[in-house]
């Protein structure tokens, strides 16, 4: 197991460098960002040159990348165009997005898995058909529609929530945005769990467990669920990264100043320092989440451990 983890950790190194280099190149392809800093007029050449030197934009791209990576390892992610340290931006943005992601994941796990188990055990019954229909609706409606609709109904018409999240972004403010963010994945998890549970409930080992006279609850939680959750865990694991990076739409609708917002600003202003910095961290999150999934796999299914 330890060796397995170490091998996986080593594999992360080339992925990390490859991903950051790609992002770096992509942002650079977008062109010279300095021109946008002076608004609707040309920067005077001397100031533009100084700004370019300050942000290291006057060097060749490969050298910029090397300098950048060198700095990253000392914890210096550079400065955004508005004069703030990128680490400072991360310090304010990541906690907010992590809270939002956690809320979303909790919704996915709690609602998604319970509905999945419920319908999986009662397949073909009205409850099953009803939930399946509901998930279909949720999957087919884009997030921004659900988001705007909930915002309008709960925020403006009924006044239950505030339409915009304050800069503190406390957990209770994030419940509705979290639900919106989770909605599509939640529907997938329901369907995934349902299929898996339905399939496994006919398996031999479940029949054996029932025949042994184990209480139903124990059969479901120890025998059925443990095996049925493997694909679900994979999905949730990869989804954590997707949720953090893909929160742009939700964050924009509910005015959440998280990672999505900073990335959006960074891209609009072509601030490579911001974009590369944030994406680097997101890549790390992605890799770690995947590693965690693989380890969980091994825990859930001992056969994988020795493979």
């Amino acid at each position, binding site marked *: 197991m330890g060796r397995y983890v170490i091998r996986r950790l080593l594999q992360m190194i080339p992925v990390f460098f490859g991903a950051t280099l790609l992002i770096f190149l992509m942002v650079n392809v*977008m062109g010279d960002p300095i021109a946008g800093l002076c608004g*609707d007029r*040309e920067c005077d050449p001397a100031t533009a040159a100084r700004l370019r030197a300050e942000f290291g934009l006057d060097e060749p791209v490969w050298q910029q990348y090397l300098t950048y990576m060198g700095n990253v390892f000392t914890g210096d992610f550079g400065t955004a*165009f*508005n004069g703030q340290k990128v680490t400072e931006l991360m310090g304010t943005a990541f906690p907010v997005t992590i809270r939002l992601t956690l809320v979303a994941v909790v*919704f996915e796990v709690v609602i998604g898995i319970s509905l999945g188990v419920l319908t999986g055990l009662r397949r073909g019954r009205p409850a099953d058909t009803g939930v399946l229909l509901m998930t279909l609706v949720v999957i087919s409606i884009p997030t921004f529609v659900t988001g705007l609709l909930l915002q309008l109904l709960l925020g403006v018409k009924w006044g239950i929530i505030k339409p*915009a999240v304050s800069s503190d972004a406390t957990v*209770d403010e994030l419940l509705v945005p979290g639900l919106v963010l989770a909605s599509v994945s939640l529907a997938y998890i329901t369907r995934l769990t349902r299929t898996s549970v339905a399939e496994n409930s006919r398996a031999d080992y479940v029949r054996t467990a029932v025949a042994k006279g184990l209480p139903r609850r124990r059969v*479901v939680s120890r025998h059925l669920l443990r095996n049925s959750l493997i694909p679900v865990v994979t999905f949730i694991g990869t989804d954590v990264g997707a949720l953090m990076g893909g929160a742009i739409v939700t964050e924009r609708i509910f005015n959440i100043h998280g990672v999505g917002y900073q990335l959006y600003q960074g*891209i609009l202003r072509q601030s490579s320092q911001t974009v590369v910095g944030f994406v680097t961290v997101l890549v790390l999150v992605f890799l770690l989440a995947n590693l965690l999934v693989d380890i969980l796999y091994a825990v859930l299914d001992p056969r994988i451990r020795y493979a």
Partner: protein
Amino acid sequence: MRGATRATWMACALAVALAATACGGGDSGGGAAGVVSSSWGDPHNPLEPSNTNEVQGGKVLDMLFRGLKRYDPKTGEAKDMLAEKIDTADSRSFTVTIKDGWTFSNGEKVTAKSFVDAWNYGAHLKNNQRNAYFFGYIEGYDKVHPEKGEATAETLSGLRVKDQRTFTVKLTQKFSTWPETLGYAAFAPLPRAFFDDHDAWLAKPVGNGPYTVDSYVKGSRMSMRKWERYPGPDKARNGGVDLTVYTDNNTAYTDLTAGNLDLLDDVPASQLKNVRADLGDRYINTPAGIVQTLAFPYYDERWNADGMEKVRTGLSMAINRQQITDTIFQKTRTPAHDWTSPVLRQEGGFDDTLCGKACDFDPARAKKLVAEGGGIPGGTLRITFNADTGSHREWVDAVCNSINNALGNDRACTGAPVGTFADYRSQIVDRKMAGPFRAGWQMDYPLIQNFLQPLYYTNASSNDGKWSSEKFDKLVDEANAESDPAKAVGKFREAEKVVRDEMAAIPLWYQNGSAGYSDRISNVALNPFSVPVYNEITVN
């Protein structure tokens, strides 16, 4: 019993989630008593007077600073604020005397040195100030801010402190209306605290205006409170202003209709249809010093050829401005008939007859003129715009439709979107424009000079199309040397006629400022820069 624990855990999580929902949304809207909450956009650059060149940063500076002059929020006229008098004999050397009794909110006195130090800071190359060129008329600018290489002087030679309350300014050329430019935020005074601990100042700016900064979370919110001992005549009539950064104006609009926000100073285009029904007379739409034009790449020989002015005039006549402003902008913009803005008013040089027939929709004549001028270079007109902000795509499509219909050719005009504003600007700076492109001008100060010289003078800072005309340059020089303001305006108008005859850029429409507010506040108005006059707002 292990299964039971899991079930309990799930139940608890659900209960917590539900309980938390019940707690959420219980807080009341709005801020502290007498405080106005207002929408804000994240300033692009660090908040320093000479480094702020867009509206969002500018609105903060307008609350925190008072300069020598201030533009009247209603008329736009430059009126003395800290200046007691500004004397000149030759329109080139000025003696500025400042009023007694002004202090910064940290107690420091505002002296002549506060201005001279601030201006020297703003002009110096090493400080990377985006607005440095505002000091370009002052003698010695080429030493502290050379086009290439290092600065050879620390301070502007044209600035001299005479005593506590007087300083002199020497300009490189005659510029009779120069004192009227001094209301621009870049000319604000700075306290010693700014120079002593720059980082601390940026974290919590200190100025001499009617408000002080209570707290500032960069990129997120800024709370300003009334400064009780503010010595000026325009004291704040509310307890303070809380600015909240919105990632999307639509969210701000939703927050306004839900009663959580008091003031939104830029109603999104998509809500213009609903805004009158939602807000009634709490929606304001007033002229602002913004004019939208189509500029041409004169560095491209095909656009600079003889006879092209006919094509450009023809294109101008092919655009149905009235229809576009009515349908796409819901009458919140006005078809332009000159290259300035209505906020200048007649005496300031605005003239809505100046463009004349060349700005009237006349498809038949348009088709004829374009044919006479030799047709559109390359056969297809590509209008370049940035697709990330504003609703540029909508109007570019509409303009193209209008041109296509007038010329009777479906392929005469297409839009050419560029992804981001930064990329758009860098393509302009690199002179890569293949055809006409979107150009907007928001005035720095309400002078006709500001609508013409930076945009059309040879190699001027915002002359993106690189248009050049000796006749125009000569008239502008003469206008600047003219000591009688009325005569200067007349000369500028002559110069504007050169722009018209050549159709250097096609004027499209004057943009209005638009704002909506809640029933919690009153006395809301926009100044000619489309910024709310915050200090006048009262809380009911």
